C-alpha cells in the first residue's frame, strides 16, 4: 500500500443515515474475482435507473461532485455486509475518505486496510458539513485533524497502528508474519487444540 499523509478535497454530501454496503455496491456486482474496476458500480442503484441511464438528481451525477474525494455520509455509514468490495469500489471511484458521526465496525476496518480514511466527527461538525456541501476540507493523518474551509480544525480518532501503517505504507500482513515464532509457540503451548 502507498503511504498516505494528507487529503485535501471538496466534499460530496449524502446525508441519509444507515447507508449500507449493499447500497455502496449491490451484491450482483460481487461475482468478480478481482478487486479492481469496481468504481463503475459504486452506488449503482442510486446512480442509474433501470435502463442504466444516470439519474440526474443523484448527488454523484451532478457536475460539482466531479473530482471530490471526500464523502460525507449520514450516521452508521457502511453498515451491513462485510464486503470489502465497498471500500474497493469507493476508492476506485476516486474517494479517499468518508466522514460521518458513526462508521460501522467492519467497514471501518476494511477501509483502513485499503487506504480509505474513516473520519468520525461529532454531531455539530457533521451538521456543518451537511449544511455546506462542496466545501474544501483537509484530512491530516499525521496530526489526526480535519480542517474545515475556515481554517478551524478538529481532531478525529484513528487507531494508532492503522495510522502508522497508513503514514508509512506498511502492509499489516507483514507485521503478523514477523510474529511467527509467537504464533508457533502459542500453538504448541495451548491447553486444548481446535
Amino acid at each position, binding site marked *: 500500500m502507498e503511504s498516505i499523509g494528507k487529503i485535501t478535497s471538496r466534499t460530496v454530501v449524502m446525508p441519509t443515515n444507515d447507508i449500507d454496503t449493499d447500497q455502496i455496491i449491490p451484491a450482483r456486482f460481487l461475482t468478480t474475482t478481482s478487486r479492481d474496476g469496481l468504481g463503475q458500480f459504486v452506488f449503482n442503484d442510486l446512480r442509474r435507473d433501470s435502463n442504466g441511464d444516470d439519474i440526474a438528481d443523484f448527488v454523484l451525477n451532478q457536475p460539482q461532485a466531479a473530482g471530490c474525494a471526500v464523502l460525507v455520509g*449520514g450516521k452508521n455509514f457502511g453498515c*451491513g455486509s462485510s464486503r470489502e468490495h465497498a471500500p474497493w469500489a469507493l476508492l476506485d471511484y476516486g474517494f479517499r475518505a468518508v466522514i460521518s458521526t458513526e462508521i460501522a465496525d467492519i467497514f471501518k476496518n476494511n477501509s483502513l486496510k485499503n487506504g480509505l480514511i474513516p473520519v468520525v466527527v461529532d454531531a455539530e461538525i457533521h451538521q456543518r458539513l451537511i449544511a455546506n456541501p462542496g466545501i474544501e476540507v483537509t484530512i491530516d493523518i499525521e496530526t489526526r485533524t480535519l480542517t474545515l474551509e475556515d481554517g478551524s480544525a478538529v481532531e478525529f480518532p484513528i487507531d494508532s497502528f492503522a495510522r502508522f501503517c497508513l503514514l508509512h505504507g506498511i502492509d499489516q500482513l507483514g507485521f503478523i508474519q514477523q510474529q511467527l515464532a509467537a504464533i508457533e509457540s502459542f500453538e504448541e503451548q495451548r491447553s486444548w487444540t481446535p
Partner: protein
Amino acid sequence: MSNDKTLFEKVWDDHVVVAETPDTPAILYVDLHIIHEVTTPQAFSLLREKRFPVRRPDLILATMDHSTPTTPVTTFKDLDVVAEGAANQIRQMEVNCKEFGIELLGFGSIERGIVHIIGPELGATQPGKTIVCGDSHTSTHGAFGALAFGIGTTEVGHVLATQCLLQRKSRTLVIDVEGNLSKGVTAKDLILGIIGKIGVDGGIGHVIEYRGDAISALSMDSRMTVCNMSIEAGARAGMIAPDDTTFEFLNGRPRSPRGADWDTSVARWRELRTDDGAKYDKSASISASDLGPMVTFGTNPGMVVGINDAVPDRPSDPSFRKALDYMQIEAGKPMTHNDVDVVFVGSCANSRLSDLQEAANIVKGRKVADGVRMLVVPGSQQIKKDAESLGLDKIFVAAGAEWREAGCSMCIGMNGDIVATGKLAVSTSNRNFEGRQGVGARTVLASPMTAAASAITGKVADPRPFLRDE
C-alpha cells in the same frame, strides 16, 4: 482488581498470541476459518502472488453458498443457469481449494450449505472457539459461546497466511431477556424487537452477550437466529453462554469431540460463562413476554413494528421518510394492510429444520394465495434431506411453493433468485436494505411462521390464527 471476566473476555484472553498495546492491536488466534466463493478469490490471489502457503488448511471449513444456484447442480455445465461471473467464481473456488490443499464441501457433498448453517451442523462450531468468515453473519456461531465475527477479504488473507488476525478488544454490551415467548412468537421476533429497541447502530464497537430466562429456554436453532442478527444492531459479535442445550446439540456431530475428549471439552465449556462480579460496558433489557410477531416496515432491520401495530411516522426525519417512500408503506396503518408478491423461507437467519417445520405446520393442507410466489430454500443439503424424510417438501410443493437446493438464494440475490422491482417480499432473511433481494425489491423481514401465514393469505399476516396444536 477483580479477576472476574465476561464470557467474551474469557474467550478473547484464551486466544491472545501477542497482547494489545496502545500502539499495536492484539494478535488473535483463529480456531475456525470458514470460507466461501464470494469473499476469498482476492485473498487467494494475494497468497499466490506472494508465494505464501495456507498456514492451517486443517482449520478451514470451505463451501460454496452465496452465488450457487438453488436448482440441482450435478455437473459444472449446470452452472450455466447462473450469471457467467458467478459461475466463474464457483469454478475459481474449486481451483483455489485444490491448489492450497483445502477440503471443499462442494456440489455433490451432503455437507454443503450456507456457511453459518454447516459449521454448527457438522459440530465444527464449538464453545470457546474463535471463528471468522468473510461474511458479517458469522455472529451466528456466537450462539455456542464462540467468539465469532465477520471480516473483510484482506483479513481473510491474513488468516489464510498466519491463522491470526490483528484485533482491538471490543467493548461489551449485555442484553437481559426475561419472561417467555408466547405461542406464535419466535426468536426472530425477539431479535427484531431487540434491534428495534437498541437501534441498528446500538451495538457498534461492542460484543453483545444475550442472557436471561428467555434465552436459556431457547433451542440452539433459535439461539442462532438471535446471534445471527447481532450485526444488524451494528455489533461486532453476539454470544450466548453454553449450557446443556448446547452440549446436547453438539454431542455426536461429525466434527464434535468424542470419547474422553468429549468429557474434557464439556468440562472446559462449562467454565465459559460470565463471572458474577464481571462488568459489562453497557446493558439493555427486554421482556420476551411482551412481544408479539414482529415485521419490518422500512429499509433497515431496526424499522420494525408489531404485526398488528400501526407503522409509526417521523415526518421530520428525511432518512425515515425516504425508507417509507421506497417501501411504499403508509404510516399509521398496520403492515397487515399490505399485499404480498413473494415469500422467501431461507437464509442463515431461518433455514434450519425447525424453521422449515414451523412454516410447514402453517402451510400444511392450505394453498399459497393466487399470485404469490413462495420459495423455500433449506440451509444445507443435510437439512434438505432431513426435511424430505419428514415429508416437508411434499407439504410445501402441495401448497404451491417451490422447494430448492441449499444456498443463500433470495437473501442476497446473487444466484438469480431475486425479487422483481417494486414487488413486496415477506422474507425470513436478515436484511431489508434497499435492493438487497433485487433492484427495487421491497423486503419485509419476519419469522418463518409469519412468512408462511403471509403466503397463505396473500397479505402480511399474523401467524397466530393459523397455528395448529402440535
